[in-house]
């Protein structure tokens, strides 16, 4: 689905990756690995189209992604370092707005998704009185709602407890089995057995540590 | 689109062509400015009303004109940069802002200095003066935005949006300010409406105006070339250039 060719990016005179190329097929899970500061977040932001500081080509279903930006956005779910959760709104209200943002989401599923991420009983609590992990969970509930085939997840397991991580891993696997693709970064050893491919950014242009 | 337009899009070509043009403009600017000032200070006749303070016009008007032209240039460059994603246009925008701002300062300062002997006051809230002050603020805004954003290309694009918004507003500002002032009070002091100057007065003025344009070109090209080297520092040709020197 997504093909990356010859990607080059530098920040502050330091080359993060050079001639990076890979492609993501339906049903694949790709884990981007690398030390702190190796450029994982930068890569995720480039792939999702948030950042344009790169050279090289990215194709979406065979077309340059710049030209099919709208289709691409329709098919993408991006989960960044920041959760995108409004502190004064409740989990429900937060998700309702996301449902309005992506036409494919069905607003009726929200309660179900919240239950899935273990926030039952917290639907009506403003998010600022939830814990760090619970806040991340609100945002992760989008994974249960989304019908987008491509998921780009930047450290989705941060602050999530062990049971939660296991549940999310199962979800990723299910998504892949249904023909979706996942690109994710995590410093955590994935417990998924299956179609996981690893790409190590340290090998593209090592950082000294 | 003519060929030179595409060539201009190449920083390298732009660097080379400005390198060739720069000496010519520099010499022209030097000659015109020096000649014009001497003419203005020594040979132009004094105004029958304002006396010798009139000689300030030879700095005041060119700098005021330049301050306005530089903003236009910035906006045009901004539009080109946003529409055609032309890097050189971004750099022109960034380089023009401080020059334009310095011209606005000069226009304001000479105006204020001139105002003291003529009107007995450093400043009045006259339409022209006010709109020049606002133009100066617009410059400051572009420069502040440019320096506040670290990433160069983001900074350039943001300033381009701002200067375009500004350029839509400049006629509105000018019009509104003019109307406001004539409305509140009949202008006590009027800037002389295109006085029927004798030729020995306006010819040096013309010389100075052209000289200021040349100076503007020189300064713009110098800044542009710096900008090009900085932005293209990774490319082979800049590397060669550095080694050669």
């Amino acid at each position: 689905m997504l093909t990356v060719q010859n990607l080059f990016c530098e920040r502050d005179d330091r080359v993060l990756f050079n001639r990076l190329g890979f492609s993501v097929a339906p049903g694949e899970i790709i884990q981007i690995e690398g030390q702190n500061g190796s450029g994982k977040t930068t890569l995720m932001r480039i792939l999702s189209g948030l950042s344009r500081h790169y050279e090289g080509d990215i194709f979406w279903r065979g077309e340059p992604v710049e030209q099919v930006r709208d289709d691409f956005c329709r098919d993408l779910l991006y989960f960044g370092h920041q959760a995108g959760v409004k502190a004064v709104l409740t989990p429900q209200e937060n998700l309702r707005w996301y449902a309005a943002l992506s036409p494919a989401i069905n607003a009726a599923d929200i309660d179900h998704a919240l239950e899935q991420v273990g926030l039952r009983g917290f639907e009506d609590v403003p998010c600022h009185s939830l814990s760090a992990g619970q806040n991340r969970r609100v945002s992760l509930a989008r994974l249960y709602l989304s019908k987008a085939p491509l998921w780009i997840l930047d450290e989705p397991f941060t602050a999530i407890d062990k049971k939660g991580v296991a549940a999310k891993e199962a979800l990723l696997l299910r998504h892949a089995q249904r023909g979706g693709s996942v690109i994710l970064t995590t410093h955590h050893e994935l417990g998924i057995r299956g179609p996981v491919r690893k790409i190590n950014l340290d090998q593209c242009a090592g950082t000294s540590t | 689109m003519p060929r030179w337009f595409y060539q201009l899009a190449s920083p390298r070509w732009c660097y080379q062509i400005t390198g060739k043009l720069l000496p010519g403009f520099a010499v022209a600017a030097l000659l015109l400015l020096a000649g014009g000032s001497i003419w203005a200070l020594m040979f132009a006749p004094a105004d029958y009303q304002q006396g010798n303070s009139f000689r300030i016009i030879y700095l005041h008007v060119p700098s005021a004109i330049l301050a306005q032209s530089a903003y236009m240039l910035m906006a045009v460059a901004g539009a080109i940069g946003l529409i055609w994603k032309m890097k050189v246009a971004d750099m022109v925008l960034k380089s023009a802002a401080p020059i334009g701002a310095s011209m606005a300062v000069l226009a304001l300062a000479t105006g204020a200095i001139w105002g003291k002997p003529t009107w007995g006051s450093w400043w009045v809230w006259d339409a022209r003066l006010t709109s020049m002050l606002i133009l100066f603020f617009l410059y400051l805004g572009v420069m502040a935005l440019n320096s506040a954003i670290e990433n160069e290309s983001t900074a350039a694009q943001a300033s381009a949006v701002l200067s375009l918004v500004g350029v839509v507003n400049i006629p509105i500002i000018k019009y509104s300010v003019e109307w406001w002032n004539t409305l509140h009070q009949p202008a006590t002091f009027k800037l002389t409406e295109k006085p029927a100057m004798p030729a020995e007065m306006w010819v040096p003025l013309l010389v100075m105006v052209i000289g200021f344009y040349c100076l503007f070109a020189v300064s713009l090209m110098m800044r542009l070339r710096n900008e090009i080297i900085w932005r293209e520092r990774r490319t082979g040709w800049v590397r060669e250039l550095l080694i050669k020197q």
Partner: protein
Amino acid sequence: MQTNSEDLQRQSLSGLFWATCRREYLLSFRRKSDLVNPLIFFLMVATLFPLGVSPEPGFLAQLAPGVVWVAALLSTLLSMDALFRSDYEDGSLEQLLLSPQPLFLVVLAKVLAHWSVTGLALTVMAPLLGLMLFLPAEGMPGLMLSLLLGTPTLSLVGAIGAALTVGLRKGGVLISLLVLPLYIPVLIFGSSAVQAAVTGLPLGGYLALLGALLALALGLAPLAISAALRISMSS
């Protein structure tokens, strides 16, 4: 089929617009301070004048149109900074930019919602200020009408500034530098309208001008805001 899908899309667009409005209202009603603070600021600027300048009614009446307009302008300006900042900080803005829906629509909804809790509220409160500053009663309709037509323009133009500075670590004051010069026409026409109303001159011309500015801003600002947001976020 074709029309049906178009219909659906149109429906989802208006749904988006209202969902965004609803969210913004929720956000500002949840923390009430957001709602009343611009108003209180407005009120206080007006209070500072009699204290700082002179308490004499005749003198204050002369000042009133200008002071009310300046206060409205500053109070809008100050509330502007928050428009996109919290969305930026918690990551909602990224999500917004990556949504397949047209950005300018969401932006327009946000500005509208913002205006209705600041500009509109200021307009409603303005007569109180007028009273405090001894503005003659003839001036009141002019004051309210000019604010009603002028403050949306202020919000729209201010949002451009907010969008340009959102990625910066602190845009709070930078935004005023960018935006204040652009506010000047609105200030001039607005306060002139009030003065005209006070002296009994016709104020239709000023209101028409304010309306024209509003139309221009309504047409161009959402595009500029969207572009600015994309630019700010791409660094």
